């Protein structure tokens, strides 16, 4: 199972629709970095509206991929994190303080464009 990555001008859009298991997560990390490399994208929006659970492992993979993308010159915004997911992340002590977030995909794109200037 792999997660589709769409390209829109110099942005990459990802909407995660399936329950993420560990393999899918690692695969996604590789795919995304590959795609950034190939397209030279400067911004990435990962939409998590349909994701019902993020445990410490998935959180680490997400955090890592954001740092790695940053190193490659692409800013990442996470969007659509559900209340239940946000609360469990806080309980886990995972605050993702450096990660940019937005309410939905559209706001995420606006954030990349206006605030992060990419």
């Amino acid at each position, binding site marked *: 199972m792999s997660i589709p990555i769409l390209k829109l001008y110099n942005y990459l859009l990802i909407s995660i629709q399936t329950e993420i298991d560990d393999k899918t997560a690692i695969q996604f990390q590789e795919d995304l970095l590959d795609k950034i490399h190939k397209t030279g994208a400067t911004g990435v929006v990962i939409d998590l509206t349909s994701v019902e659970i993020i445990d410490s492992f998935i959180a680490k993979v997400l955090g890592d991929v954001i740092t790695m993308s940053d190193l490659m010159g692409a800013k990442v915004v*996470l*969007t659509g994190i559900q*209340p239940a997911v946000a609360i469990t*992340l806080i309980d886990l002590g995972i*605050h*993702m303080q450096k990660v940019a977030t937005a*309410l939905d995909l559209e*706001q995420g794109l606006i954030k990349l464009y206006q605030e992060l200037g990419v």
Partner: protein
Amino acid sequence: MNSKLIQIAIENSDTIVQMWLEKIDSLKVDKFSSSTSDELFENTNREFVNVIFTSIKQQGSLIEVVAFSEKIITLGWPLSYITDGLQMFRRVTIDFILSNSDQVDTSFFSELLTSVDRWVEPIIHQLINEYTGSWEHILSIQRIALQELSAPLIPVTDGITIMPLIGTIDTERAKLIMENLLEGAIKHNSEVVLIDITGVPVVDTMVAHHIIQAAEAVRLIGATCILVGIRPEIAQTIVNLGIDLTNLPTKSSLKKGFTSALEITNRKIVDLKPKEDGIEEMIKSLQGE
């Protein structure tokens, strides 16, 4: 034997009802307010005793009992009216049958008790169930009302929502507040959420901790949280306790918080007409121009 007793009870129902009605009248004095009219009381009593007899006649059917209990519950009559009434019915019926039987031995006596119990018990059960059901219902409604009351969320304008916190915050309430806050922020599509703690009497480390967590969760869902209504004494305790709120934007008043919420959402409040213009216009109109 049971059916024979049922027959006796039914054949003499007029007498039993009369005996019962006399007894139940004594309840009115101590259990009911004067607002219950005698007429209503008497009619309901008659209905009650009819319901009991119908149930006995129909071999314990409870259909009419349910309808009757609904009525009593709506009238708001005490549960003891029902239980006392049924106890009286039990006593009156047993007395009546005993005093009208020629040979009374222990086995007859015990069978009589068993039979009458068998008529009355299901009715008592049913009525108590109906009553407690209605209490539980009321209780759950009140609980929900209280929950809503304890963490209201006000969408003031597009993208800006205010949550005024009032009263003491314990762990249980803090969880509720966090959930309401996040779900509300998403429902109203709020870019900025203002948490107003003007009404929170004490901010100790625990409360501060919960507020910080809520603010961080708000950030994760993609909105911004501003803490407003920080009174001087609250600011003092926060610093004295060594609570770090540096990651959380704060404002002293709701008004200031609202202004920065507007800034964040790229808006501002403008006067449609400058004040001086307004005064000039007024003077002109007074001069009749």
